[in-house]
């Protein structure tokens, strides 16, 4: 490059160089989307199958498969460490998106941990109520309100009902993170994935009283993982390899 140049050339350099550093997802990000996409799709598919084939109340043990999500943590860490090592430029969009995904993770963890904690209160309450067949006792255990007891059978369902809101809530968060990331980097498959997640939330909330709601929710989680993570992940990988070629 020459040392001095005209004012017009000067503007052209500014425009060209600013374009160089903007709107490109970091190399390797496709693999991160694929990791979480295949994990969610695999677990939700396996949960759906177990919900269908396991008999009676034992089918609910299928949900323990979701604890496998913790496997994603160390793998994610290794992938991100590799990406950070190979990173040549960090744009302001990269920085903002990093915090969007941190906020997404914290939101998911907060809801899951909160609901697990609420279940810890339900177990002793249910046991106590079943022992005495006393709903009043049950409420006393849960809310410490000291309400008077009545002799009615315990309806377990109402105490687990909150868990039905987890899949739509998760998909709502997926939708937000995918839509923002897709729009920020101008990558259409990602923000379309976000829109698909939001449409799925509408369907899941509308079908929350359906007799097969549990299976429907798992199938939609699988579908959204494919639409929002797996397809964009593969497209990103393809884009990266064509950029290099």
């Amino acid at each position, binding site marked *: *490059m*020459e*040392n*001095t*140049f005209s*004012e*017009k*050339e*000067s*503007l052209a*350099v*500014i425009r*060209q*160089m*600013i374009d*160089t*550093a*903007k709107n490109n997802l970091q190399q390797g990000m496709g693999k991160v989307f694929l990791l979480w996409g295949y994990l969610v799709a695999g677990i939700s598919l396996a949960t759906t199958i177990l919900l269908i084939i396991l008999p009676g109340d034992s089918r609910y043990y299928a949900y323990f498969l979701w604890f496998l999500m913790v496997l994603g943590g160390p793998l994610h860490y290794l992938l991100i460490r590799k990406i950070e*090592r190979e*990173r*040549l*430029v*960090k*744009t*302001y969009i*990269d*920085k903002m998106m990093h915090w969007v995904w941190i906020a997404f993770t914290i939101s998911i963890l907060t809801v899951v941990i909160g609901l697990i904690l609420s279940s810890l209160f339900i177990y002793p309450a249910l046991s106590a109520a079943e022992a005495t067949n006393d709903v009043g006792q049950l409420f006393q255990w849960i809310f410490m309100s000291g309400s008077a007891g009545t002799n009615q059978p315990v309806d377990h369902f109402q105490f687990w009902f909150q868990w039905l809101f987890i899949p739509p809530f998760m998909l709502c968060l997926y939708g937000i993170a995918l839509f923002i990331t897709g729009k920020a980097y101008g990558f259409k498959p990602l923000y379309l994935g976000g829109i698909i997640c939001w449409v799925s939330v509408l369907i899941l909330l509308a079908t929350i009283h359906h007799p097969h709601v549990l299976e429907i929710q798992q199938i939609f989680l699988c579908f959204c993982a494919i639409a929002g993570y797996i397809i964009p992940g593969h497209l990103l990988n393809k884009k990266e390899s064509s950029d290099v070629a």
Partner: protein
Amino acid sequence: MLPELDPLLHSQLRLAVISILIGSDEADFVFLRKATGATAGNLSVQIEKLREAGYISVEKSFRGKMPRTTCQITPEGVTAFENYVEALQNYLPK
């Protein structure tokens, strides 16, 4: 009378470096070299001039066993760039 353009920025390579850094939180030396198409030696010299003027900060570290140089624009650099673009507008036909 037209305002004088900052001579430190009115050089193709230095302006290219500053333009990349204005849109980035940080950029690696290798990225700057590829983006500008400059030789490593020439780029090093120009980066050092920008650093001496306080327009950019340069951090040297290691990525594994490989040395790594990362550049970031400083608030002074942002102001200088803004002033440069403002002065440049006066040279363009209205």
